[in-house]
């Protein structure tokens, strides 16, 4: 026996002052994951996020189903953001099959995608409230989210898992009178979320809890490969809807919200600003949408893809979400790979938590806009 051990098996020196805490997987403040935290008194000296508890093999499952039957299960990783999760896959398959999408369907997709972004962010905001110990901040977003869920139910027939996007458009046309209802509800929703600023974001205790904690500098944010609201909170103007427009986003006027601080407060405020921006996008799309026309191209039964690969990405509620589809001229894809924003943002967690206080752990962790189920796929 040699004394040399592989790095992972090397024995660690035990320090009497250091206590190891397993935050999760059965812990109210972890989600479906574990964070192994080592604390010295109230300070975190090391943090090791351990995802993988809800791995469901979505990518492997996609290899045994054809392009259409893949739709319902590929949206499972983030059911609250199901339209956006499905978006890159659908865009990729359309390119593989060589389909041109009708103009009206593109607008319907944009509306559904923005509504879904709001639904996801409201849920995220509710959990953020719980993590800060603010129960009203949980109840209000969870209640106002119902408005948009009802709207999506009217549009797609399902409350959460819509399976609405299909290669070639969307599954069903909008119901009659949808535009008026949507405009009314979105206007009310916009008014309502602006009230949140007074109650939550201007709350002095919330500001003192989150300001100057877990600061991610601009360089680090780029170096660690973070994306979405985390990247924009660190001062990088990066939004795929503007940088790589897909569908009809290039015809809409989109403003990207950027904050320079890079702390938890900025990371928690950017999604809220995104929601206000989403409301504006929805209103523009409702105005510019063709009033009639087909929303779906008729596909051949069991379509076969070209023998090539595509990579498409969209801006989801958490950041850029990519889908890599490899086709070998069969009805089933050879490989489907989801490149998820949650996992990229999680990489920043050990860097942010080092040296922080234990009380900051939940707020920093959840401000990373991380969804455990999506990271495990």
């Amino acid at each position, binding site marked *: 026996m040699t004394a040399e051990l592989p790095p992972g098996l090397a024995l660690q020196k035990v320090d009497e002052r250091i206590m190891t805490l397993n935050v999760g997987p059965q812990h109210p403040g972890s989600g479906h994951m574990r964070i192994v935290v080592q604390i010295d008194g*109230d300070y975190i000296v090391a943090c090791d996020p351990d995802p993988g508890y809800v791995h469901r093999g979505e990518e492997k499952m996609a290899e045994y189903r054809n392009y259409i039957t893949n739709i319902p299960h590929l949206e499972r990783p983030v059911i609250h953001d199901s339209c956006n999760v499905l978006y890159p896959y659908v865009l990729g398959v359309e390119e593989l099959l060589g389909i041109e999408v009708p103009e009206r369907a593109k607008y319907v997709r944009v509306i559904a995608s923005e509504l879904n972004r709001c639904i996801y962010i409201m849920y995220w905001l509710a959990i953020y409230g719980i993590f800060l*110990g*603010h*129960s009203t901040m949980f109840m209000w977003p969870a*209640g106002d989210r*119902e408005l948009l869920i009802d709207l999506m139910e009217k549009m797609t027939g399902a409350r959460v898992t819509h399976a609405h996007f299909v290669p070639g458009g969307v599954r069903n046309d909008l119901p009659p009178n949808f535009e008026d209802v949507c405009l009314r509800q979105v206007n009310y929703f916009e008014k309502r979320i602006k009230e949140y600023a007074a*109650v939550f974001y201007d*709350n002095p*205790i919330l500001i003192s809890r989150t300001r100057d904690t877990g600061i991610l500098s601009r360089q680090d944010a780029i170096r660690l490969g973070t994306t979405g609201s985390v990247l924009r909170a660190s001062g990088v103007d990066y939004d795929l809807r503007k940088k790589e427009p897909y569908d009809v986003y290039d015809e809409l006027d989109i403003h990207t919200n950027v904050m320079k601080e890079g702390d938890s407060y900025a990371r928690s405020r950017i999604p809220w600003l995104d929601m206000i921006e989403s409301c504006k996008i929805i209103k523009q799309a409702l105005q510019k949408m063709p009033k009639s026309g087909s929303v779906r191209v008729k596909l051949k039964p069991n379509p076969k893809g070209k023998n090539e690969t595509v990579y498409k990405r969209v801006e989801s509620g958490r950041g850029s979400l990519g889908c890599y589809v490899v086709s070998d001229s069969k009805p089933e894809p050879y490989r489907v790979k989801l490149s998820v924003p949650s996992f990229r943002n999680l990489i920043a967690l050990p860097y942010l938590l080092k040296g922080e206080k*234990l009380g900051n752990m939940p707020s920093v962790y959840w401000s990373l806009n991380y969804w455990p189920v999506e990271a495990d796929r």
Partner: protein
Amino acid sequence: MSVIAPNFKLSEFIKSLLDNAFWGVLLMVLVGIPAVMMVLFFIEMPVINGELLTPFLALTWLADPSRILPVVHAFMATDMFRVMAFPGFGFAALLAAGTIFVERKMLAKLQLRVGPFYCGKIEGILQLMGDGLKLISKEIIIPAKADKPLFWAAPVIFVGAAAAFVALIPVAPGWVVADVDLGLLGVFAVIGFFPIITILSAWSANSKFPFIGGIRALFQMVSFEIPLILSLLGVVILTGTLNLSEIAASQSSFPWIVFLPIGAIVFFITMLAELERIPFDLPEAESEIVAGWLTELSGMMYGLVQLGTYLKLYAFAALFVVLFLGGWNGPMIVPPFPAEILTDGIVMGPITAKIPGLPLFTQEMLNGTLWFVLKTVGVIFFILLPRGVFPRIRIDMLLNLGWTKLIGLAFVNIFIALGLLYAGVLGPGGLQ
């Protein structure tokens, strides 16, 4: 909003009341009266005034006010009544139960939801009873590595300490369980005992999250005790006594909050911290350390700690009322007892019921209790309110607040009290 609870309907409300009354009467007839009869049947009855006391006679006596009222009077004069029922445990537990109900419903209204609704049919009024039954019926699980005697004892001692706190509170003139001359010192002693129980429970659980929670509780309670005691010294300087009844009686014309608002504010904030209420609920911070020092407690052990917590909440609110809001003092709003009932009796058609021994409580006592309860409920409302508005604060911010700001303000309060005393505004020869 898709799910809305049914609206309040008067007819259903009356129907539910009748339902409950029906079951009450049925249970009393089928179970209560036979049980009393059986007990009376097996007891060997004494001979009183030459006649044998039969069960029938005993029940007749129970219904005869001229015989039962003296017994009630005698019982109300005992210490047992004071400890168990009126100024003591029963009264406090009733107010604590009301507090939990109001907290749930008020928080629900604040958060645009309904709150407890179905249990008890009337606005979820029996929810607390359901919770209690659930906690009693649950299994008590003790960690294998726990120090069992201490772990068992801690919740019981916690309730005991809270009850000791309640015993020191004067509710109405003369109505206090323990009327001691050093009452305020007793209060300080009881408050100083809580962190010991907390750390005892947390350490004996031998688990990581309770340990961190216990240490946090220790930090918080010990560092907030100093401003708490200092903020009350102003009142002691002005009144010159530590007896809580005398402090309450001294505020017959002005409550001390008029002269010592800073002390009242400091005491209120420290009170929130001592009670571990939001925004100072760090020892039970859910998202960080599960449930803090309560993590390993299960079943009725948890229930006992909750009972103790709400008794403590009532006692702190009552202490605030006694020290700063004038205790039982207030305008006389209870009407005097009608004297003709004593002389003429109650005339109900052909029957005239003569009831000697009334009234059970004096007018002053009823009025004092009414004002005391009104003020206490008001203070409890303001203790509950921050829960809907604030997130939790961090331990370093908490300690910073306690050691730098609150202690300084408490000293300012003491100087104000001394100034008032030496300027002759208050104290002997002054306004009061």
